[in-house]
C-alpha cells in the first residue's frame, strides 16, 4: 500500500497530480490555497471589531475563513479564542461570535434531522408548491450567462474561486429559487460542487431559509440593495440588470402572484 506523494516542486505540480488522480473533476484550481499555514495567516488578519458593521458589504471585514473551518483546518473554538484576544470586552464582537455560532447551529439542526439535508422542512410560503419549481438548474445559471450583470459576476466568482461572499450567496440563491423558480435542491447541489467551504448543513439549510421552506417568508432582493452593498466595480446598472430593477412591492407582486398581500 504505497502512500501518495506529498512533495511537489510547486503548486502547478500538485494540481497536475490531483488532475491525474481525478480526471473526472471539472474546473481549475482556486487562488485560495489549502493548508494550515494559509489558514493561520488568514486568522491573523481577521478584524472582529469591525466585522459586525461591515459584514454585509462586498468590501466588508469578512474573514474568508470558512474553507478552513469546514475542513477542520481551524476549529470554531480556535477562531473564537483568537477573536477574543482582539477586543477589550467580549460583547464588542457579538456579531462575529454569532456568525460562528450559526455554523454550530446548522450542524446541530442537521444532526437532529439528517432528512432535512435534501427534503423540504416546511412547504414553500410563496403561493406555489414544490411541484411548481423546476428540478434542474438551467444551463445559463450553471455557466453564469444569465444576462443579468451582477448575478453573472457573482456566479463567475463562484466558478473560478470556489468562494462567494455570504450576501452574494443569498442574492444568487434567491435569484435561482424565486426569479427562476428552480427547486432549492438544484441550487444547493450546485453550490456544494463549487464551494471550497461547501457544507451540507450550512449550505442546504441556508438555501431552505432563502426558499422559505425553513423560514417564515421567501428572501428576495432588489437591484438597489445589491448596489448599496456591493456597488462599483460590480455592474449594477439598470440596463444590465433589468429583471432586478424594481421595488420590493413590485417584485413580490411579480414573483409571488398567488399570494394575496404584496404590501
Amino acid at each position: 500500500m504505497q502512500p501518495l506523494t506529498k512533495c511537489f516542486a510547486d503548486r502547478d505540480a500538485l494540481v497536475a497530480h490531483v488532475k491525474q488522480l481525478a480526471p473526472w473533476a471539472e474546473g481549475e484550481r482556486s487562488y485560495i490555497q489549502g493548508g494550515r499555514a494559509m489558514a493561520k495567516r488568514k486568522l491573523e488578519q481577521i478584524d472582529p471589531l469591525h466585522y459586525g458593521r461591515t459584514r454585509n458589504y462586498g468590501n466588508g471585514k469578512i474573514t474568508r475563513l470558512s474553507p478552513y473551518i469546514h475542513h477542520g483546518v481551524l476549529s470554531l473554538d480556535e477562531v473564537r479564542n483568537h477573536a477574543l484576544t482582539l477586543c477589550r470586552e467580549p460583547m464588542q464582537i457579538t456579531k462575529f461570535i454569532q456568525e460562528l455560532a450559526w455554523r454550530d447551529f446548522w450542524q446541530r439542526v442537521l444532526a437532529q434531522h439528517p432528512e432535512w439535508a435534501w427534503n423540504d422542512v416546511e412547504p414553500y410560503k410563496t403561493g406555489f408548491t414544490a411541484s411548481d419549481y423546476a428540478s434542474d438548474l438551467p444551463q445559463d445559471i450553471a455557466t453564469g450567462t444569465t444576462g443579468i450583470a451582477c448575478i453573472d459576476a457573482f456566479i463567475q466568482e463562484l466558478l473560478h474561486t470556489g468562494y462567494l461572499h455570504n450576501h452574494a450567496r443569498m442574492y444568487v440563491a434567491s435569484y435561482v429559487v424565486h426569479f427562476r423558480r428552480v427547486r432549492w435542491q438544484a441550487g444547493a447541489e450546485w453550490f456544494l460542487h463549487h464551494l471550497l467551504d461547501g457544507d451540507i448543513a450550512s449550505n442546504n439549510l441556508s438555501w431552505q431559509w432563502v426558499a422559505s421552506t425553513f423560514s417564515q417568508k421567501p428572501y428576495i432582493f432588489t437591484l438597489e440593495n445589491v448596489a448599496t452593498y456591493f456597488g462599483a466595480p460590480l455592474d449594477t446598472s439598470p440596463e444590465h440588470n433589468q429583471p432586478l430593477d424594481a421595488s420590493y412591492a413590485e417584485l413580490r407582486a411579480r414573483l409571488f402572484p398567488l399570494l394575496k398581500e404584496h404590501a
Partner: protein
Amino acid sequence: MSPPILWLHEEALRISHPVFTAAGEGTRAIFIWDDAYLRARNYSLKRLVFIYECLCALPVEIVHGDMTAVLQTLAPERVFVPAASAPPLKETIANATARMQVMHVPDIPFVTIAREGAMRRFFPYWNKAEKTAFMPHGGTDA
C-alpha cells in the same frame, strides 16, 4: 489484528484535532483518497486541490483506494476517527468500519448546551449558546 490506526477525513484536517491525542503518539495516521467516494460527492477540482493541499501539511499518509477495502486490508485492532457531521461521510464511515472497534472523537466544542432541545430557529439556540459562546473551549476544560 494490526496496531490501531487514526483515520483522518476531510472534516478534520489539522494536527490539533483531539483525535490525535486520543489515538496517542506514534499511531499510524492515514487519509484514504477514495475515488468513488469523492466522485459521488461531485467535488470540483478546486475542492480536491484544496483538500490535497491541506493533507500535504499534515503528518498523515495519503492512501489511494476504496475506504472499506483499505481498512479491511489494514485490519487494525481499533480505529480512531474524528466525529463527522456530513450525512454521506457519516454513512461511509459507518459502512467502512462495520465490525471494527471504532472510537469517534469529537472536536473541541464551540459552546456547551446542557439540554439542547429541538433545534429549529437560531435565537432559541443562541439564548442557550451565548452563556458559553464567549468562553474559550466553549466553557469546557478541553
